[in-house]
């Protein structure tokens, strides 16, 4: 009995990590059809946000420090959502309907983001700030002129090199100050220490449920409910679903599709940020944190069936539980108690280590997709778009 509960709990806790990581992608990839390879890096941004919030709270002492994690969740959501909006407005919106280009572009963005957290320092921020201020500020000012359309290209041709040059010169001048060139995070991983109430665990029968895991499960459920409510009960959710189903018709009916795209992407990215905050409780946060999750998240969404939240939930929990049962050797143990399954035991024992369990799960997923190429719950009828 206790072993069963333990198995179920552990399976669900692995599944909930997969689910919270995949939830944002289920929206971005599932609803919008955007293959966002930078999803892992948005998680990483969430993790780093948690780290920063933790360091801000540290000097304030105990009663405050205990609740930093609760503050960092919404902040991580906002930071990742803003990054998502910039990504969508700056790159992805030009590439709708071209999956291959989207894939390459978001891969590039993920590389940029990884390098950014490694080398970001005040100097870089100041340079980029100066450039943005000059270039976008100048554009904004000049766009009030009546002959804007005519001089637009000329303005860009002048403003772009000028503001770049000024930013570069500022960079060279300021690089003499060592305080500015010190990297914020460096290439090393940073440590997020869980507040004391999330360490340890609660004893149930003969095993202990870690508080951190319970917290992640609760957070996953809250996110799920919020997403469900937002998509099915709010006006913007209705619009998102409308655009997903038929972009042209929604546009005709007066739905601002561009805004809807940005909003959908922002929410998906924000959820990635929350996921990053959650996984920082389990491991450390580093430039490569996202890479550890990106494959798993795509796997979950594809197995669940693209565009179906319910499928994503089922796939995440299923993969989590199967992974646990194989990896911990529970399956081998169960098989050895049944006479007719004896020959299977050796095979299962062979796969009963964490790294081999992954191999087995991947093999199972590949064979599953042979039978059901569109996942657990394939989208019926005309798929929304593109």
């Amino acid at each position, binding site marked *: 009995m206790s072993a069963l509960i*333990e198995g179920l709990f552990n399976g669900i806790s692995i599944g909930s990590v997969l689910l919270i990581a995949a939830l944002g992608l289920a929206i971005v990839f599932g609803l919008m059809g955007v293959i966002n390879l930078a999803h892992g890096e948005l998680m990483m941004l969430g993790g780093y946000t948690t780290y920063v919030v933790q360091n801000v709270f540290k000097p304030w002492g105990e009663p405050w420090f205990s609740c930093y994690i609760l503050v960092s969740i919404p902040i991580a959501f906002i930071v990742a959502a803003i990054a998502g909006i910039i990504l969508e407005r700056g790159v992805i919106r030009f590439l709708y309907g071209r999956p291959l280009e989207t894939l390459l572009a978001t891969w590039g963005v993920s590389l940029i983001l990884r390098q950014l957290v490694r080398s970001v320092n005040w*100097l870089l921020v100041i340079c980029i700030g100066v450039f943005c201020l000059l270039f976008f500020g100048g554009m904004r000012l000049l766009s009030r002129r009546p002959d804007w359309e005519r001089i637009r290209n000329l303005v860009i041709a002048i403003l772009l090199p000028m503001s770049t040059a000024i930013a*570069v010169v500022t960079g060279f001048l300021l690089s003499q100050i060592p305080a500015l060139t010190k990297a914020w995070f*460096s290439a090393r991983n940073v440590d997020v220490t869980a507040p004391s109430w999330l360490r340890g665990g609660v004893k149930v029968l003969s095993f202990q449920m870690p508080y951190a895991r319970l917290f992640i499960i609760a957070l996953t459920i809250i996110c799920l409910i919020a997403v469900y409510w937002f998509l099915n009960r709010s006006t913007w959710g209705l619009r998102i679903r409308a655009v997903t189903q038929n972009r042209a018709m929604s546009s005709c009916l007066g739905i601002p599709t561009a805004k809807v795209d940005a909003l959908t992407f922002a929410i998906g990215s924000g959820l990635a940020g929350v996921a990053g905050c959650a996984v920082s409780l389990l491991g450390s946060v580093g430039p490569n944190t996202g890479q550890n999750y990106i494959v798993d998240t795509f796997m979950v969404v594809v197995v669940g069936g693209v565009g179906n939240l319910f499928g994503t939930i089922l796939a995440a929990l299923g993969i989590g539980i199967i992974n646990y049962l194989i990896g911990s050797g529970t399956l081998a143990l169960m098989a050895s108690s049944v006479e007719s399954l004896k020959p299977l035991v050796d095979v299962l024992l062979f796969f009963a280590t964490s790294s081999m369990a992954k191999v087995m799960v991947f093999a199972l997923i590949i064979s599953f997709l042979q039978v059901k190429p569109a996942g657990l719950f394939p989208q019926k009828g005309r798929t929304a778009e593109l």
Partner: protein
Amino acid sequence: MSKLGRRRFLVYSSATVATSMLLKACAGGNETTSDTEDGIKVGILHSLSGTMAISETTVVDAEMLAIDEINADGGVLGKKIIPVKEDGASDWPTFAEKAAKLIDKDQVVTVFGCWTSASRKAVLPVFESKQHMLWYPVQYEGQECSNNIFYTGAAPNQQIEPAVDWLLENKGKSFFLVGSDYVFPRTANTIIKEQLKAKGGKTVGEDYLPLGDTEVTAIITKIKAALPNGGVIFNSLNGDSNVAFFKQMQGAGLTPDKYPVMSVSIAEEEVRQIGTEYLKDHYAAWNYFQTVESPANEKFVKAFKAKYGEDRVTNDPMEAAYIMVYLWKQAVEAAGTTDIEAVRKAAVGQEFDAPEGMVKMTPNHHISKTVRIGQVREDGLFDIVSATKVPVAPIPWNQYVPETKGYACDWTDPNKGGKYKKA
């Protein structure tokens, strides 16, 4: 897509060039100049990015400290040492590529580098085919003895075996082995299993995690099933997985009084990254801890903190990296030239008063080292609970594993070489 006009093209391309210049300028100018006048170029090949960067960047710091000290002291053979840094990016093929680049393009006279055995195995063919020289500063699983590599980290009999002996004596007979899934933990665990068999201990289970993976729930279940009343966990995880392992151990209620963990890849630097609150009272086996009391160590720690900041700590691989630069310098001075063959011959027999105690390069290209066991304390440093009285001689070919039992390595005798059967 609309046709790209000439003017537009010019605008975009100039913007691209300018932006890359901007980023370059802002990234800070800490690149070494390739000035070769009266300098001796040496290669430094470590992961400055990726999952191993957490550990390897600290080793680079120690190597740079040694190089700076030597340069301030007049250099080698009257010339300054010029370090050429390359980033292996935690990617083994990249290591091989960069090693070839250092040797062929930069024409370095030696390379200091690598951390994981996987990266060392990747560069080994490069150094052997080009008859070049690598100095490797990290403890490893042994079962290797190359003429082209000098190993200044511990061989298994200078770290793993004494640690297992100590655990058998003080902590219990049942062992669970956890490791990352690559060559070091797999070989180390083979050795441990043979050793336990020989000495009356028991291996109750073993598990491997992909490098960088953070999902350890299944492993914890297995530990609890295999050791319901507590027992010893021997941990050879590397990199980020350690953080997840210790965080989740504590969450699952596996405390150090019942489940002491002996780690062979966690030193002072990693303790700080993982967090003392998760690691307190667990054990580690090394040749050097920052808390070693000796004049040489005092000087080393002081110099390191003066260069990199009061909040930094020193650890075993850093110390090994520090001393290997000095050993190389002594070898070059003894040979009177930077010629690789001459230096290789002169290196054997070099002694150095290292922070860990006296070390000596033996004919099998490994060094004799003092072995210590430490326990993590509140401030993130180690209490040394056990130390050998004299340096332990290195044995690269393991004597517990049947395939290599009775073999040894001696590069000073052309008839013996890397692997010969002892009489």
